[in-house]
């Protein structure tokens, strides 16, 4: 129950602040998700969803950081 998963905001369903919600797609399956806690999230953004609520927006630049690091250690590892 506690596994949060990333999904993509597809379309807004409700724009009342506390009940702000959108259809969020999780690789094919989509669900209504409450977005009251991520007021900055827009269509096309990825959000981390827990028990029907988005608790954070995925920062795309930070998401690439580990791969930049892996490239770096890969290069240093070359003879």
């Amino acid at each position, binding site marked *: *129950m*506690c596994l949060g998963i990333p999904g993509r905001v597809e379309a807004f369903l409700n724009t009342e602040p506390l009940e702000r919600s959108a259809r969020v797609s999780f690789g094919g399956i989509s669900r209504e998700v409450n977005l009251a806690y*991520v007021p900055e999230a827009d269509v096309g953004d990825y959000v981390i969803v827990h*028990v029907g609520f988005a608790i*954070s927006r995925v920062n795309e630049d930070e998401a690439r950081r580990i791969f930049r690091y892996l490239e770096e250690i890969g290069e240093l590892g070359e003879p």
Partner: protein
Amino acid sequence: MKYLDEYRQRDSIEKVAAEIARLNTRPWTIMEVCGGQTHAIVKYGLQQFLPAAVELVHGPGCPVCVTPLEAIDRAIAIASRPEVIFCSFGDMLRVPGSDRDLLSVKAAGGDIRIVYSPLQAVTLAEENPDREVVFFAIGFETTAPANAMAVFLAREKGLRNFSLLVSHFLVPPAIESICSAKNCRVQGFLAAGHVCAVMGYEQYPPLARKYQIPIVVTGFEPLDILEGVMLCLRQLEEGSCRVENQYARAVERHGNLPAQEMVRQVFEVVDQNWRGVGAVAASGLRLRQDFALFDAGRRFCTDIIARADTSGCISGEIMQGHKKPGDCPHFGNSCRPEKPLGAPMVSSEGACAAYYGYRRQEPANEH
């Protein structure tokens, strides 16, 4: 899927594993706090990517596992009432109470509904004005904002037939309780990424300093967990004890402020009893006086006497890092997922259920 598949790629995982092997000179014990991380570690056999000297032990971060026996007994008493529609996350139905579980109440005709969000319970209350809808609000800081919003909206909507049975836990006091135990084996922590997505990680530097222990905020995918181990190990090997954030794509230092504000409005901090572990000061939440009308415990005045757990389950020792599921004499014998003796055999985030489900992948160096 984006943000999942790329964090599960074997070549990336192997690169980080090689870096860990290069850094490692001595034995270390690291605890991952969250049950979601435990699940990923066992599912992907991540221990096999680590040097034999680096042991991962599994923390108390599974809400299904730590919800105390008396809360389950209270849930069973309330769910048995004919006027009640009892809503719960599915995992809770098979957690053993003193005499039985919620599933047996359902089998006997109790109206128990499995929901994935507390908002579904609010909708049920709107649709069934002549019934009492009770939501079993369990969890950590991750579910608290959702549960708080459910109560808040129920009040806005003027619902009088909605209430919460609250069993909420806070992670930092549990980390502190593990660190302060005399026989603590844990030398570094992977903190639960989603708890920090809500709460931030400003609470951790004082803990890291006080107990001279590195704490790395860590995500849930295999690559996240190995990078968390790598960052933790690097600190251990160089003798540092800082707080680092591996999971910066979802976690900011101050966390999610609107979510924290809603939790503060609805809940207040109380002492809490953790199943298997015992009482931990200031480690739980209950509804504030303003929301007392929505407290199912008060509404139904359930007289539950806390009983001792006599099942022989050693979940407390596992969740404090002293033992592994395989050390329990009941594991796989009298305790199996179809007939769990203790709560960690129920939820997929429970260490025992994870070890049982993926036991063929269990690495050889596990003890």
